[in-house]
């Protein structure tokens, strides 16, 4: 399916059904990411169950520090 992630259109495999799977696909650590789906900030506890849909607008902020 096609979704938008941080402003970029992205084709993701059919096996990516949940937010958790999307994060894994993007090689992002769940614990270090805050996710917004269609304008709603998600609770981390729901990543594993929250479904992805065609045309979803996803925003992800990663915890970074140091440098």
């Amino acid at each position, binding site marked *: 399916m096609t979704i938008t992630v941080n402003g970029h259109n992205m084709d993701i495999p059919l096996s990516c059904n949940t937010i958790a799977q999307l994060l894994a696909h993007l090689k992002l650590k769940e614990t270090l990411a*805050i996710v917004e789906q269609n304008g709603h*900030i998600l609770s981390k506890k729901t990543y594993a169950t929250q479904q992805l849909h065609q045309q979803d607008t996803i*925003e992800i*902020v*990663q*915890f*970074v*520090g*140091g*440098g």
Partner: protein
Amino acid sequence: MNFAVTPYHATIAHILEGLAEAIYDYIYVRHKEPQHIIEALLAAGIPKEQLIAHRDISLVTTYDVAGVHFRETDCLQVFKQQFPNKLAGQSVHSQEAAIIAASQQADYLFFGHVFPSASKQQQTPKGLTTLQRVCQAVSIPVIAIGGMHIGVEQQIRAVGAHGMAMISSIFSRFDVLVVGGGVMGCATAWRLAEAGQRVAVIEQQTIGSGASNAAGGMLGAQNEWAEENPLQPFALEAREAYPALQRELLALTGIDIEWQNAGLIKVADTALEQQALTTQYAYWQQHEVAWFDDVSQCDAYVHAACGLYFQRDGQVNARQLTEAYKQAMLRYDVQVFEHEQVVDVFDGGVRTIHQTLFADKVVVTTGAWGDADCVSPVKGECVMLHAPDVQLEKTIFHANGCYIVPKANHRFLIGATSIANDFSRHVTAKGVQWLLDQALRIVPALATAAIVETWTGLRPQTRDGLPLMGLHPTIPNVYVHQGHYRNGILLSHCLSEKMARLILGDRAILTQVEAFSPSRLMKEVST
């Protein structure tokens, strides 16, 4: 039939020191003052039957040594006639020369150089296959020379050689070889040498050229995390140790690492970014961190929706720190090999393209370089601005990853982009564009700043985000100390000091750093 070959200019003290730890059958005295060395060796109790002289037959007359070793172009006949019961050896470099020497009644041959050797860096090594052909061509003993050490004895004998002639592995040994000259390698080498170890650092390019000289220098012990993490206690310990480290390095080297403690403001704009800050604030429970709904109240230069002020997360000048570690290790006589790429690490040393170096222990501090399955580069681009009228002192760190670090002489370090799995070193237009867009949005006063420099660095990221620290999973006497991603500068001294103590024998360190065990990622892969 193994030979210890003395280095040409070595002192008798150095020679005796090397021999004391070595196993050999003969000592080939190839030296600028052979009589002096032979007399000293005899006086030290070494039997004359173990000594071989270089080309000078009169030394047999005078000292009754076991034999004489000749060059490829020398004729052995005079010696063999005069001393039929003494050994006549000859160095050869080809199968043809070997056959000729054997026909001239040589008792043994040196053939080489077989492996890369410090003595023959400009020439191509001959390798095991040629050695084997030489061994098959003659029936007298063939002794291999060039990069020889106990670790290859089996391979040498397997192709038919009777033994090895060793120089560096007996007389140019180090206690520890450090592979990789970034902050981790240099800090570890410094503390080891300070403790009396003979250390060499082998760097593929120049000291600090990977990530160390590129870093922003932030000591973000709190800024880095919003949850429990095994690195956190070390990060806090490391951050608190910086004032003392600055004093120590200044006294030892005269270099000021420019430790600053104006604190760090983490800022956010979008709702999502603010959520990240809220989460981080909740984690730290107001411990040395304050929330600002109006960031201009914290610092008038900063424009953002909200911010967290970490008052104890300071910063240092990463290039000064790298240089200070380098000078500190030079102060303790660490030998530095630059532009030397290590191609193999083994129990007992390392092999580079040009030479083989020998040591009891090796520590791998290669940063982003290593097994691609375990560690990979995350390229970062940076811009340095110069703005004499901007009085900003705090570090500003945006939740989107852009940071502004005030440096000495009115400079501001803007960092950094993140490009995974990229070893390239050029700065891109879009990288600079992003950095400047962000920086000018956060601190508009920087708009008229001059651009003075741009550069890249390669952050070393491991597969699970935690460093590799401890014993190599398969190679004995090899340690691993790499993969510190965004916190190398912060952790450099604290963790390297522990690594040095581990290498010196403090095994309790291993329990402390269990979470970073190399075997969790490296498995059966070597190097």
